[in-house]
């Protein structure tokens, strides 16, 4: 497990309390999990993803990450409708471990793009991690 100062916490994305990240991509929002999350999970062996067209409110469970010994639920940081899922994760779930911020899990059309402001920024997320 990495120490806090070894974790990547890029600016330019927003974070949820459950360690997901959300990043604006045009009028859509891409969602993935933070470096802390993938480090805690260990080797990811399977990603359960939603279907295109599914809708979620902020805080709804939209999928799961499985490692050999654990399962972690994924919670939508903001509400919206799924417009794309990252198909490469079906064959290569380890990409999340290798590149947690480059490897998005789902892309949604947000109900309200302003909702991202409710999430944590780089500093606030770092504070959250220090408190863990």
């Amino acid at each position, binding site marked *: 497990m990495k120490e806090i100062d070894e974790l990547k916490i890029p600016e330019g994305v927003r974070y949820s309390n459950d360690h997901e990240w959300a990043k604006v991509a045009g009028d859509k929002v891409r969602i993935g999990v933070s470096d802390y999350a993938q480090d805690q999970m260990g*080797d990811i*062996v*399977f990603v359960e993803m939603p279907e295109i067209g599914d809708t979620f409110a902020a805080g709804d469970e939209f999928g799961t990450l*499985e*490692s*050999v*010994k654990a399962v972690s639920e994924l919670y939508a940081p903001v509400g919206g409708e799924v417009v794309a899922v990252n198909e490469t994760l079906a064959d290569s*779930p*380890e990409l999340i471990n290798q590149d947690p911020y480059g490897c998005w899990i789902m892309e949604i059309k947000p109900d309200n793009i302003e909702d991202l402001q409710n999430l944590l920024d780089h500093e606030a997320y770092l504070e959250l991690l220090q408190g863990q």
Partner: protein
Amino acid sequence: MKNAPGRSGLIMEEPLLWEKGKVGRNGMSIPDSDVPAAHLAEELCGPGPDFPDLSEVDVVRHYTRLSQWNFGVDTGMYPLGSCTMKYNPKINEKHAAAEEIGVAHPMLEDEYCQGTLRIIYELQNYLAAITGMDAVSVQPAAGAHGELAGMLVFAAYHESKGKKRTKILMPDTAHGTNPASAALCGYKPIPIKSGPRGILDVAQIRELMDEETAGIMITNPNTLGLFEENIREIAEIVHEKGGLVYGDGANMNAIMGIVDLKKCGVDVMHLNLHKTFSTPHGGGGPGAGPVCVVDSLAKFLPSPKVEFDGSQYRLESDRPESVGRMHAFHGNYAVLVRALCYILTMGAENLKKATQYAVLNACYIKVKLKNHLHLAYDRPCMHEAVFSDKRQQEFKVSTLDIAKRLMDSGYHPPTIYFPLVVHGAIMIEPTETESLEELDTFIEVVKEVVHEAEIDPDLLHNSPQRFKVKRLDETQAARNPCLRG
């Protein structure tokens, strides 16, 4: 490790069954046909499965070699917390394998099988006596199956009271089968955090228990090896709101002859015959999980039930309030025979001694190891003690590494990473069938591994060294499952 038992091996290679054999070989004596070949419609027939053809020698050698790669209780100690890996008596095997029992068909009329029915009847009574409960069904085929039976009894009881309840209180130390069994009956588990002393906090239960809650599932002693001292008060709170108390009896080995579960307020419980009652684990099964209830709930027990009218044993199926049938027949019958033999061999005094010595052994280990491994709760334990890898973290050595290195000395590791409330848990349950010398050797080995963790962590990271295989890649197995040949 000079005195440790596991230092050399006789490990033969052996391929997979279909990597051997030749078409036309045969390993079984098939009688010639003494009747004419009957007409057989073509469209019915399939080609038959692609099985290898092997001789009896091929097959016997195959499984003999496979067995030699295995560790069993007869090989050495399994200090597995929560599993009660005690000695499996051989006399029990003899009776379970008796021909007279082997040929008993379960659909025979009662009058033809008084012997096999009597075995069930006696076992029912003895298990009731041991637990303090009133009525027993031996139909469930495993502990989890017994838990399901228990949850079904809960559901039947609440239905009889006219109200379907939707929640159930679940301690955070509960075994995974508890919430899984509850979920099968539509109960949502409501988590209860254990308090700082490692036992349940009465105030929390008083706050959470309501008339939507079916009851509580408790393990006593709990999975930290600690007696739930407040169980009677907890039971009162639950009963007051019309709920029931379920007792997970996995840890029965800590309390035989000492604790009366009915007096504790338990309404429904299960036992694990493959734990407390010495039946062998068989590499994963079969077990048996009899369910025991108080008098008022006896009518809900699974059907059919064995009754005795004074002269004849009978299967009673006319039980309108029963939760129904759980198993095609009478459960894992041969396992029941073994458990009965064990109880008849031990008797009341020796079962109580078994409990006393099991607790004695665990307390001894706890005292001897507490300065070497971090003890999760420095309090009196019962038949198992929970440690953790806290002190080894600075050397980047985990519970897993410690477990793998212990193997190299000829010990099966303790239970690891359970219960979940202790990070990096190492749960040690020696059972009463381990002698003082065995415990002392085990303790020395653990101390040595702890020392190795400090001076040579990589040795632990690359353990085990002495088995047929080194550490296996479980990630690959899960990412790219290859589940058959």
